[in-house]
Structure formats: structure tokens, C-alpha cells
């Protein structure tokens, strides 16, 4: 799966346009977990929605196995997109409160018109067992389930149509740590078993580092750094990635915590009117003239590690680094 120069724009009235995703090109290899991190408003969910054809790119192409789904006829697209599923943060909003769990899970199969009713029921029940929801839950309604159980139901439902890729959009964000661990374990098992590819969208750096093979960092609609997951934590090459990593609180005793935290000043600028040049420059401690004049391009500085920063090679050497915020 890949995106080529994909932009997604939304009209916001009075002729103004919001660019949620701006010229994003990523490649997700089969069977890998691709993590996408960034603050709210960075465009990470919009990318996820575009990949499962819930949003049509204003520019650029999405390629599923080399094919552009939007070039397909409507009926073909309907069949094709089943392979690309999405799981959301809030299972309450994703499950119909008036449908039993079994019916919710079976619904994609009903829509697809696959097999007999008995076959579909059986497949839904099998998947319920597989995700750790016993069949006893089949006739319950969503309000009778806990958050973790509901999320399991959503996972089972996404699996019914045998997808090849699942976008997990903050799928564990609302769960308690112990339940979160269960769901992450389950997702890892299912990946092995069904050869799934995941796009894992989250703001939780601990989670994304744990499960991803590759991590991309987004800021104001653009990818600003992309690296193998085991490299990013130590070898980040973008000041924004550094700030994001250092802001994540870790449960370590006071003596063992990283000695400084970079607290970014201000907030994400409006995506309606992004800064010129490098979009991060308004909050960056290392910004110089060139950052305002010229937008940095993603450059490959190590195998599989690309970053969009004019000062990528030098900023970590800056003696001011030790001082904390700007």
C-alpha cells in the first residue's frame, strides 16, 4: 500500500480551504505495522481515512497493491475496499446500540452477501471466540459490555471480511493500561495469524514504539520524519520529534528520567494558514532564516530514515540543547 503525493483539502466556507494532508507519500509494506504519530490536527486521521477510501484525495494517488481504488467502478470499489478496514477510538460510536453484538459483527458479511445466513453467523461466532469474546456475548447489546470488550467486538467485525490492511485510529487510546496491553497483544497475534498489515495511528509514543516496524511523524499535514521504529527513539533527526518524545511522561524514578524535557511554546498553527517554509519553524528552537524562506524536503540521512529539516545534521550538536525550552 502506498500514497503518492496525496493531499486532502476540505472547503470551509467563504472560498477558504483547509489542507488537512499536504503532499504525503508513504509506503507500507505487506505484513508490517506502520505507526503514525503527531498532535491532534496534524492530519494523521485524515490520512488513515483516505487509505480506507473514506476520504478522496484532492491530489495524488492512493495505491492498494499498485491499483488506484478511485479508478475503479463504484461496484468494484465496494468490493475492493473490504480489504481495507478501520477501527476507531470510540467503540461506542462504532457499534449500533440497538444491534446485538453478533449482528454488529455479522453486518459486514450481510452487506457483502456472503454465503448463507448460517455460514455468516458461524463466521461471526468464530471470530468472536478468536478475539476473546465468548459466544455468551452474542446476544448482548453494546451497553452491556466494557470498553475493552466493545473494542474486541470492533476488531472481530473488521476481520469478518478478511481484510489485508487495518487502520487502527487511536484504537487503544481510551482503554486502561492493562486492557490496552490485552488488545495490543491480540492485535499482534491476529497480525501473525492472518498476515495483516496495520497502520497504527496514535498519540501514545510508548504504544507506537512497542508495536511498529516503521514510525512516521506528522506535523500540520506533512510527514516530517520517518524511520525504522528501533531507530527513532535514539536517532531522531527532527526537532519536533525530539520535542514529542521528550514530552511523553515515563514511569521511571526521578533519578532515571531523561534530564530535560523540551516544552514547546504555543500551539499548533492553523492549518488554514500554515507558516511559510518549514511549518514547524514558529515553535522550533533552531529555526533560522532559511527555515522561513524554504520548505525543507524529506531527505534520506540513513537507510530507511528520512527527515524534513534544514538543520537535521547539526541541531543535536547545538549546545543550547541542554537548556530545555527556547
Amino acid at each position, binding site marked *: 500500500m502506498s500514497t503518492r503525493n496525496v493531499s486532502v483539502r476540505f472547503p470551509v466556507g467563504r472560498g477558504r480551504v483547509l489542507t488537512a494532508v499536504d503532499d504525503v507519500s508513504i509506503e507500507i509494506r505487506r505484513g508490517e505495522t506502520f505507526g503514525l504519530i503527531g*498532535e491532534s490536527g496534524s492530519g494523521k486521521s485524515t490520512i488513515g481515512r483516505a487509505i480506507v477510501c473514506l476520504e478522496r484525495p484532492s491530489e495524488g494517488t492512493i495505491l492498494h497493491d499498485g491499483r488506484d481504488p478511485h479508478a475503479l467502478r463504484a461496484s468494484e470499489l465496494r468490493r475492493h475496499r473490504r480489504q481495507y478496514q478501520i477501527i476507531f477510538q470510540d467503540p461506542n460510536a462504532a457499534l449500533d446500540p440497538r444491534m446485538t453484538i453478533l449482528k454488529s459483527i455479522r453486518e459486514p458479511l450481510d452487506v457483502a452477501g456472503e454465503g448463507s445466513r448460517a455460514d455468516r453467523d458461524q463466521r461471526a461466532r468464530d471470530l468472536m471466540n478468536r478475539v476473546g469474546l465468548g459466544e455468551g456475548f452474542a446476544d448482548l447489546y453494546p451497553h452491556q459490555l466494557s470498553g475493552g470488550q466493545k473494542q474486541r467486538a470492533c476488531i472481530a467485525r473488521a476481520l469478518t471480511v478478511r481484510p489485508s490492511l487495518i487502520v487502527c485510529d487511536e484504537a487503544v487510546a481510551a482503554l486502561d493500561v492493562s486492557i490496552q496491553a*490485552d488488545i495490543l*497483544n491480540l492485535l499482534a497475534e491476529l497480525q501473525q495469524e492472518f498476515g495483516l498489515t496495520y497502520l497504527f495511528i496514535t498519540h501514545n509514543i*510508548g504504544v507506537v514504539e512497542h508495536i511498529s516496524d516503521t514510525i512516521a511523524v506528522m506535523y500540520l499535514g506533512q510527514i516530517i520524519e520517518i524511520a525504522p521504529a528501533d531507530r527513532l527513539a535514539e536517532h531522531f533527526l527532527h526537532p519536533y520529534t525530539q520535542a514529542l518524545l521528550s514530552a511523553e511522561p515515563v514511569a*521511571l524514578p526521578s533519578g532515571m528520567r531523561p534530564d530535560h524535557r523540551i516544552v514547546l511554546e504555543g500551539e499548533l498553527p492553523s492549518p488554514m494558514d500554515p507558516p511559510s517554509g518549514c511549518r514547524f519553524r514558529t515553535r522550533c528552537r533552531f529555526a533560522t532564516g532559511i527555515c522561513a524562506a524554504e520548505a525543507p524536503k524529506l531527505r534520506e540521512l540513513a537507510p530507511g530514515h528520512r527527515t524534513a529539516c534544514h538543520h537535521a545534521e547539526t541541531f543535536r550538536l547545538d549546545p543550547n540543547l541542554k537548556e530545555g525550552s527556547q
Partner: protein
Amino acid sequence: MTSPEQISAAPARPRTDAAPLLDVRGLGISFAGPDKRISVVRDVTFSVAPGECVGLVGESGCGKTVTGLALMGLLPVHGSRFEGQLLLDGEDLLTLSEAQWRKRRGRRLGMIFQEPMSALDPVFTIGEQIGETLRTHFRISRREARDRAIEALEAVGISEPVRRHDAYPHELSGGMRQRAMIAMAISCEPALLIADEPTTALDVTVQAQITDVLGELSARSGMAMLFISHDLGLVSQTCSRIVTMYAGEVVEMGETDDVLLKPRHPYTSGLLRSLPSFTQRKGRLPSIPGRVPRPGDFPETCRFQDRCAHSREGCLTRQHLLRVGEQRFSRCHRSEDLDLPGVLS
């Protein structure tokens, strides 16, 4: 190590060095249910010293929020029943009349919530709402209230405080609204701020800004904080002591570093070990089987017993909070025998 000493029955004070600002002794809360009373919180004992920041952790449904609301006198008067004592500066809050509560709530005790949008009134400006709080507690003019509101906005790091003073909540971003709510809570310089998941809805970068603001305020004015959160990382970073709650009871208490390195209750240990940062990348995360029982279904045994890997026959009786060290408490009779893994083991 001192021998286990039961503190629940005769509530000994967990901290002995400083007179606590807040001293919660054997707090019990029950609500009227459809056919019987439902106990949601039982035997909650902990204290907060002046200027201290204490973290209250546990999964959803463990009674953290209800404890915070009880401290603010915000639980419904009808249907709620309380036991024990809630001592603020030696005065039992549970004996206050509503009129007396009004004098303390907002003045001595402040509270901030997870969702600032539901705590702020959409039809009044930020400044009017802070001013209202100030004028409720102090005999000051509108002009003075305005000045102090602007000062409070400045103190929480809101840029252009004069302009924001006249802004409506919807005109601010999530982080700004959270700051505005903090400004309102601290405008009367409370002795204790109860922060219930104050940054859960915010991005990590904004969360870092907010926790910095809270830390600075506490350092500057000597305000104590009870920080309620499910995020162990955040609590370890902001609090000097941790209180773990499970199924309506306090199950562990201690200095933050000590709790992280050597948890003395299997539940705290389980919570810490399930954090992804402590397992090898892509490795299987240790989780706690089962889920928190609902109020009304709390067992009469150790409440964690059915989810605990260390459960024995002796765990089938009610557990009491035991002193297991200097300022160290655990509601597990096996805590002396168990060598529970912390964040580094």
C-alpha cells in the same frame, strides 16, 4: 522494616513528619441502589501535606473520581452516605452544612476536571467566570476582580491575558480552555487543588505545558495537589507520593520512586508491568487478567484476589491496609513474602 501493623481499624496517620493539610481517614461512600445500598468506596485512608503533590492512580471504576468529588462536597446529598472523616486542616468536611461548604469550595479547595468545556459556561466570558468565583469569596470590586482574573490567566501561561479575559470558551483551543479552568481554580489560591485527569484529553506537548504550569503554581504558592490519573507515567513525573486504588479501596501507598521500583501490592506491580515501555519491542505485554468488579459485586475476600497471580487461601478474607515500611502501606497480607517486579525488574 517494621512489622505489619493494621491501620484501618484504628486509623493511624500515614505521615507523621508534617501535620497533614488533608487527612482522609477511613472514608466510605455508599449510594442508594434500586434494592440495596451500594458501597462504592471503603476504608480510604491517605493524607496530603501542605504543598505536597500526591497521585491517586488506578483503572476506571476504582473510585478515584468519586473520592475527589467527595472531597469537594460535590456528591448528591440525597442518597449518598459517608463514613469516616475528611479532615482539612483538622476540620471534618463531612460535618459541614451546605452553607459552610460554599465558603470552602473554591476558596480552600479547588478542582479541575478532564473536560474543560463542560466545566465552563459557554454563555459567559472566561473573565466573567473567574470574576464570579473571586467575588463569591472576596469582597472586592468588579474592577479588582477583573485585575485578579487577568493575573490568574497570566499565571497559567495564557498569552494576551487581557484579550482572553473577554473571550468565550468556544474561542479557545482545548489547551487554552484547560488553562482557563486552572486559572479559575487557582484564582482564590486554594490550599489544595484536586486535579481529576486534567490532561487526558490533551496532546502530549500540551500536557507537558499544563503539568509545568501546575508544578510552578504549586512551587510558588505552596498549593498542595491531589492528582487523579490513570497515567502512571504522568503521576510519577508530577507527584512525590502515589496512592493506588483498586475496587474502591486504597491498596498501596508510598513515595513515588519506591513504589515504581518496589511495588508492594500485586495490583500496582501489574499496572506498571503492563506499560509498553517496559517490555521488549514487539514482545508480549504482561496484562492483568479479568477486570475491575463493579460496585455491588465487590467480593468479601481480598478484592483483587481473583485477578492476582499470587493468590493463596489466606487471600480469601478481607484485607486491611498494613504498614510495610516507612510511609509505606499495602493492602496485601503477602506483601512481605512477595518480591513483586517494579519498572526495572
